[in-house]
């Protein structure tokens, strides 16, 4: 793993590669839209795909710390912010799809849904909570906020829980898919509880 840790390789090789890879899902959506391959209900397809990727990027982000702790590698930490920001990116696309394509700025319907439909309330809350996290993701903000940054960014656990709950509440009958996400999330959060109990946190930015 010496190679991976070399910061030249990280900066100019791995990071751009992961960045491009993280754009692939939206690239595929655009490609399919271009090819008219989004199926009979393209708006629903885009909503679902962006929603799926929001949740996946959230879980990937939450997977970084356990990966680092278990393997002892430090390099994965260099990807945590990028993955977190991609979660926010996809969440914002997902929300925009809903606001623009689905509801087409029908503000009355939008407000009504946010207030009345628990799954939307929960999804919207999750997105709102991601905003301050994205806004304070810079190195400067990290430094300025210090230990408060760590506390603030613990909100991501709540966001992920709300994200899974959102999915769980929107399916009609078969909860298999949200259940799989719930299981993965429980493993990621459970690991932290387990690990935190055993050892004190060594690094102040380990959230």
């Amino acid at each position, binding site marked *: 793993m010496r190679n991976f840790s070399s910061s030249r390789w990280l900066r100019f090789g791995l990071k751009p590669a992961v960045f491009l890879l993280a754009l692939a899902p939206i690239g595929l959506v655009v490609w399919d839209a271009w090819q008219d391959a989004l*199926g*009979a*209900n393209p*708006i*629903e397809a885009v909503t679902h795909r962006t929603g799926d990727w929001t949740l996946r990027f959230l879980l990937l982000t939450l997977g970084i710390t356990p990966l680092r702790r278990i393997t002892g590698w430090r390099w994965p930490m260099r990807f945590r912010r990028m993955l977190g920001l991609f979660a926010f990116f996809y969440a914002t696309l997902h929300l925009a799809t809903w606001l623009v*394509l689905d509801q*087409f700025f*029908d503000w009355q*319907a939008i407000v*009504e*849904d946010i207030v*009345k*439909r*628990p*799954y939307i309330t929960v999804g919207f809350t999750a997105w709102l909570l991601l905003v301050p996290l994205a806004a304070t993701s810079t190195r400067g903000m990290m430094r300025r906020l210090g230990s408060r940054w760590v506390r603030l960014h613990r909100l991501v656990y709540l966001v992920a829980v709300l994200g899974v709950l959102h999915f769980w*509440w*929107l399916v*009609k*009958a*078969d909860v*298999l898919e949200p259940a799989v996400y719930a299981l993965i999330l429980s493993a990621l959060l459970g690991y932290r509880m387990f690990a935190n109990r055993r050892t004190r946190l060594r690094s102040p930015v380990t959230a």
Partner: protein
Amino acid sequence: MLIRVKRRSDPKPSELTPKSVYEDRRRFLRTAAVAGASAAFPGLLVSGAARAGRKLPRVRHNPDYSTDETWTDYDDITSYNNFLELGTGKEDPKENAHRLKTRPWSVAVEGECERPGVYDLEDFVKPHRLEERVYRLRCVEAWSMVIPWVGFELRTVLKAARPTSKAKYVAFESVYDPKNLPGQRRRILDWPYKEGLRMDEAMHPLTILAVGLYGEVLPNQNGAPLRVVVPWKYGFKSAKSIVRIRLVEKQPPTTWNTLAPDEYGFYSNVNPEVDHPRWSQKKERRIGEFFKRRTLPFNGYADEVAHLYAGMDLRKYY
């Protein structure tokens, strides 16, 4: 008697796609596909069994019971389906269509009637003159289509069975074949799928048993070989792949209503005023269109069916 009223929702003739244009295109594509398949698998087409894509003979278009709105694209009707027996994704039923064995197929008519019977599908369908009915279909998930069904009125079947005075409801039961149907391997729903109608709803001339669409044998993913179509109710009331029609005295248990009674009522008439607990029913997206449109009470069939519910509180009996 049904009086045809021009509705607001009906488009002007100029908005209609000339039927021949897209039919020609689709027929060409499908003829090409069938030709290709039969070249690859000789014998496939001479099996004698009715196959999806085969033209149904002597179908009479019934303009009195048809909307003249633009038909939803054939590919959309056959690739965007809620048919959980064939998978939970919208495109799963098309992909798994071959898993549904539609021959041999028998239909039982039983319960509170003088002439119960179990019929082979061909015998069951043969006595009926097939009609084309172009109906709106409004899914409870707030999307809709316009589908040219081919079928016959359910009431002719019921009358022939001679219901007794105790027959107050009709219960439908769909196919149960967990060996072949991938969706039935897990208990997503309480299989087999069950639906039901009140007797007067079942006897209404708009209620049909469909065996085809677009003039052709019903594709498996759309509920082959025989399904109910009740156009003024949410789509899930129109049970697919029917094997049993039972006349009963009490309101029969129905699948979605049993699973989530606060979300899916027994009646489930299309009603923009009563929201699904998780989403609004005020509007719908017509498949193929970008902007949502307003949902009409009874899916635009209020003139024909509203009287069935006179005096009923439709918020309570949603």
